[in-house]
C-alpha cells in the first residue's frame, strides 16, 4: 500500500486517540457528578458498559497507531528485506494478539463473555 494511505491512517488514528482519550478521561473523572463519585466501582462499570463500542474503537485506534508507529521506528533503525518483513509480521502478530485480548476484556465487561 502507498505510504500516504498508511500515514493518513496513522494521523487519523492519532486524532481519534486524542478525542476518545479525552472523552475517556472526562467520563472516568467526572461522570456521575464529581471525581469521588466517578471513581466508584458502580459508576466506572456503568461508563464501561454504556460506552463499550467507543472503547472498542479506542482499542482499534490504539492498536494501529502503536504497532504501525513501532514498525516504522524499527524500520528506520535498520533496513533489509528480510528484517523488514520479520518486523511487519511480528507487529501483525503482537498487534493482533493485543487487539484480541483487549476485545475479550471489553466483551467481558459488556457481559457478552464470562
Amino acid at each position, binding site marked *: 500500500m*502507498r*505510504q*500516504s*494511505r498508511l*500515514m*493518513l491512517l496513522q494521523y487519523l488514528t492519532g486524532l481519534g486517540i486524542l478525542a476518545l482519550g479525552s472523552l475517556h478521561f472526562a467520563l472516568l473523572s467526572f461522570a456521575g457528578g464529581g471525581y469521588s463519585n466517578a471513581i466508584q466501582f458502580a459508576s466506572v462499570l456503568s461508563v464501561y458498559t454504556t460506552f463499550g463500542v467507543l472503547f472498542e474503537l479506542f482499542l482499534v485506534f490504539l492498536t494501529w497507531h502503536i504497532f504501525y508507529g513501532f514498525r516504522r521506528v524499527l*524500520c*528506520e*533503525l535498520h533496513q533489509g528485506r528480510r528484517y523488514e518483513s520479520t518486523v511487519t509480521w511480528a507487529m501483525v502478530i503482537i498487534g493482533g494478539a493485543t487487539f484480541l485480548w483487549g476485545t475479550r476484556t471489553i466483551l467481558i465487561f459488556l457481559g457478552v463473555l464470562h
Partner: protein
Amino acid sequence: MGNEDHSHFSGGLTLTENDHGSEQSALSESTGNEQSTVKLRVFRYKNLPKDDTSAPSTSFDTFQVPISNGTTLLDALIYVKEKLDPTLTFRYSCRMGICGSCGVNANGKEKLACKTQVKDLGENIEVRPLNNLSLIRDLTVDFKPFIEKNVKVKPYLVRNDVDVDGGFNREFRQTPDELNQYLMFANCLMCGLCYSACPTNATDELYLGPQALARAYRYIADSRDGGQLERIEIVDQEHAAWSCHFAGSCSDVCPKGVDPAFAIQQLKALALRKQGLLKRKKPSPLVERPRESVNPV
C-alpha cells in the same frame, strides 16, 4: 615539523593525534594583510587491507596554518597539502561555491570549504568528512548512493507529447511566475551537505534523502514537466518523503538557500491529494517558431 603521538581508542577504531607545525607561506605574502594562525585538526582515513594492523585506519592530524583576511577553509586545506602534508586528500574544483565538490564538516556543521571563511570558525577548527556516506580517504566520501538516489526521482523533464531526447531544439512556454515555482530548487549543486546533516539518512540508508526529494519537487513544480504522477509514485513509498521528520537540518546547512524540508512537506501534501484530487497537469506548450526564422532548423 614536530610530530607528537597520542593514541587512543574511539568506537573500536584506533585514533592517532599528530601535530604538524606551520611554514609561513606565500598564502599570507600574496594577500599582504594582517596574519594569524589557526589550528586545523583534520580527520584522516586510510582504507587499509583488513589484515594490515601496522597502522590505525583513522586518526586526527593537527596543522598550524597561517591565515589572513579572506582565507577560506579550502585555502587552508590546500596550504596543508602543498606545504605540510601532500598525502591529505580532499575534493574541490571551482573554488567559488559552484561545483559543490568541497563539502566538509567543519566544527560540527556541514559547509562548502571554499565558501567558508576560516576567521568565522575560530582558532581551533576540526574538519571531518561528510556524514552518512562511506569514506574513501581522509575528507573524501563515496557519492555513489547519493547520485543513484537522485537518478531514482527522474531528474529531467518528462514529456509524453513530444520527444525531448536527442536533437530536440525547441523551447517550452513558461511565465516568470511559473519559473518562480521551482527556481529556488533548481539552484541545488548536489554538494551533499543536506544529505550529511539529515538525521533520517543517519539511520536509514535507504532513505532517498533531502536532495533527491527536493529534486523531485523541483520537476513536479516545473510547468514544463508532465511526469508528476510518476514522481509522486516514487516519493510516496517507504524510505522516501514520509520518512522525513522535519528536523530541518537540510535547509539549515544548504549553501544555496534551497529549502529541501519545505519541498518534502509539499511532496507529502501532493501525495495525499493524489488519493483522488490530483489530476495529471497539462505541461506547458512549445513556444511557436517565428514565422521567418533567420536560422531555420
